[in-house]
């Protein structure tokens, strides 16, 4: 582990000014160092528990590469976090549009539930089971609505921030959120009825 940490220090250049950095001072290294954990969390939450660590890391890498390419055009009109999380949301949406990936994530959630049902009802298993159940219902919702739902309800972003991140009108955000809530409720109710 020590060797790995040393390697990491060598690979990631020392951070420049973390606070008060202007848009022109921003570098990919700074972005990565400052926002990796947040981007990882958002990507993982948007992909759901069906995504493996390798899946999440791949998508996070795509996010930072996209940010690296877009950095020269970033003029600091928006907050860095809003801009970067917007890239993350859009990259995840693109990934979720892939039929194969969507199927794989759904299958993983189902497999998780099947496995957990066979396990002893210890606390962590029960929590994971509850999470997988919610995600089984969430996976039934179209990705574009699901992304808005997760950003708003789970990540706590404001409607305006989501509109800016996804490049959609604010009214569309509310519409998607409304539909997502209604559909999620329906699927959860159906699940409760089945149990």
């Amino acid at each position: 582990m020590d060797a790995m940490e040393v390697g990491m220090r060598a690979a990631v250049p020392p951070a420049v000014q973390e606070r008060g950095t202007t848009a022109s001072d921003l570098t990919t290294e700074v972005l990565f160092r400052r926002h990796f954990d947040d981007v990882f969390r958002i990507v993982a939450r948007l992909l759901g528990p069906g995504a493996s660590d390798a899946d999440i890391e791949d998508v996070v890498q795509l996010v930072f590469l996209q940010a690296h390419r877009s950095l020269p055009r970033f003029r600091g009109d928006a907050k860095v976090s809003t801009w970067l999380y917007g890239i993350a949301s859009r990259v995840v949406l693109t990934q979720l549009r892939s039929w194969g990936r969507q199927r794989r994530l759904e299958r993983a959630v189902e497999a998780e539930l099947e496995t957990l049902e066979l396990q002893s009802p210890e606390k962590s298993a029960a929590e994971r089971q509850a999470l997988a159940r919610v995600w089984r219902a969430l996976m039934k919702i179209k990705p574009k609505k699901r992304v808005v739902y997760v950003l708003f309800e789970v990540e706590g972003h404001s409607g305006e921030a989501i509109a800016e991140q996804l490049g959609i009108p604010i009214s569309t955000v509310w519409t998607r959120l409304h539909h997502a809530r209604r559909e999620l409720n329906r699927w959860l109710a159906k699940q409760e009825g089945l149990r």
Partner: protein
Amino acid sequence: MSEARTQNERLDRANAILTNHVPKPAPGAKERVWRGVDRHRRPWRMRFGWPEAVVFAAALAVVFFVQRTPTPEVEWRTVAAGEAVSTHGATVRTLGASTVRTPVVKDGRTVVQVVDGHLDFDVAPRAIGESFVVQTRHAIVTVVGTRFAVRADDDGTVVEVEEGTVEVAPRSGTARRLLAGEQIRIASAASIARADERVAQANRGEAIARAVDAEVPAARDTKEAESTKAPASSGGPAVSKSRERRAAPRARVVERGDAASAAERGEGESPGGAARAEGSTDVNRAAGSHAPAALQVADQEASAPSAERGPGATAPSDSALRAQVVSPKERLRIARKVVASDASRAAELASSVLDEAPAPALEAEALAVLADARRRAGDDAEAAELYRALADHPAASAYGEEALLQLALVSRNVGRLDTARAALETANARYPHGPLALERAALGARLALADGAPGRAAAILLAAPNDGLSLELIRTRLDVAEVVVEGDAELARRLLAVDRSSWPDGLARRAEALQGRLER
């Protein structure tokens, strides 16, 4: 009121569960991701070595050589409306400002290329072995000796035959012979993309279904036109191959008589007749555009609710009519799209493709969609039969492994454990190193565990490939180890003797606890 409260509580519970789950990167994730970012963001010259440089230089040399090769003298001309030119045994009259290329004669073929515009061709009969060809960006019109009009713009190409016969082929697709009085339209990729976009924007399965149904009245027009004319060659023109996957064939043949009578009925705006309206080619636009009369009537009828259609109208769900307009590939694409939200609709679409005895590859894809739809609808028994058929299908190479795994899963769900085992064995034999090998091993071990044979379960897990990470496999490994830990400590040790550095924390802790029990 209480229902609303229940709903709110349900959502609050779900939100609390989602919020409490805070995903953390696995150890080493940050380093791995940074290495990937760093490698790909470097300029190309730092990523390419000598071999790539040599290939690049060779490619440059080829381009240089090709550019030096003399090409026939051709030039683009913009011709004003109303101008008439006689050339190569043909009289060409421009009905609108047009951009054309000077005709080129090669191997007896006189080729005129049209970028944009509306032109009227009067072509003298050709000698045997000679032909007169008009090329647009979307279609190739081959003339034997006739009078016809071509209109090309960004939305597509419309060909209308006044005398004689022409053969029209999309740039990539099957040729179709047009007789006097017939008209055909070949949509451009852009206009198809717009139609696609409308389908993509349809939020629910019903909306997508409406988009499919909207094509049906047009099919009726096509059918009527063909039935009243001399027989045309079979098979409608297809759109370009690159778009064929995503869009239905858009070419339509409309009888001029129908167009005129439609205009007389006032059902379409038709200044100057169906085929003469300038800039009026987009048949996919909403009603009210300057579309040719007959085509516009078709669109208006398509967009009207079915209850408002005339008594003689064919029901939009008529799969025979739908099949003529919406290609099987397009139906499967829509079926895949709606299978999660509307399994019965997806099943209907996939069944309509299967009914037509399609090519093997398409049949396999339709089977896959139908099986998924049945599984999602909870019909595990029929899904199992379909997965079995898919697994044995000669063209199921892309689906075979998954079909066998799904067959095993649904068979287990309906209690047919023997079938599940047999499916896994077949899959192991056919796809020993397939991408689903880990999932298969996990399921096989679970089945063995259910049989009360933990030793067999352990053997399956120990024989599983070691080159990937499957959470399901890890959990199964731990479950089996927990079962055998008391009776066969050595076996439990072997099950735990794997690299656990990339395991999720919770599973790693379970493994450590087991290890502790073993050491005690």
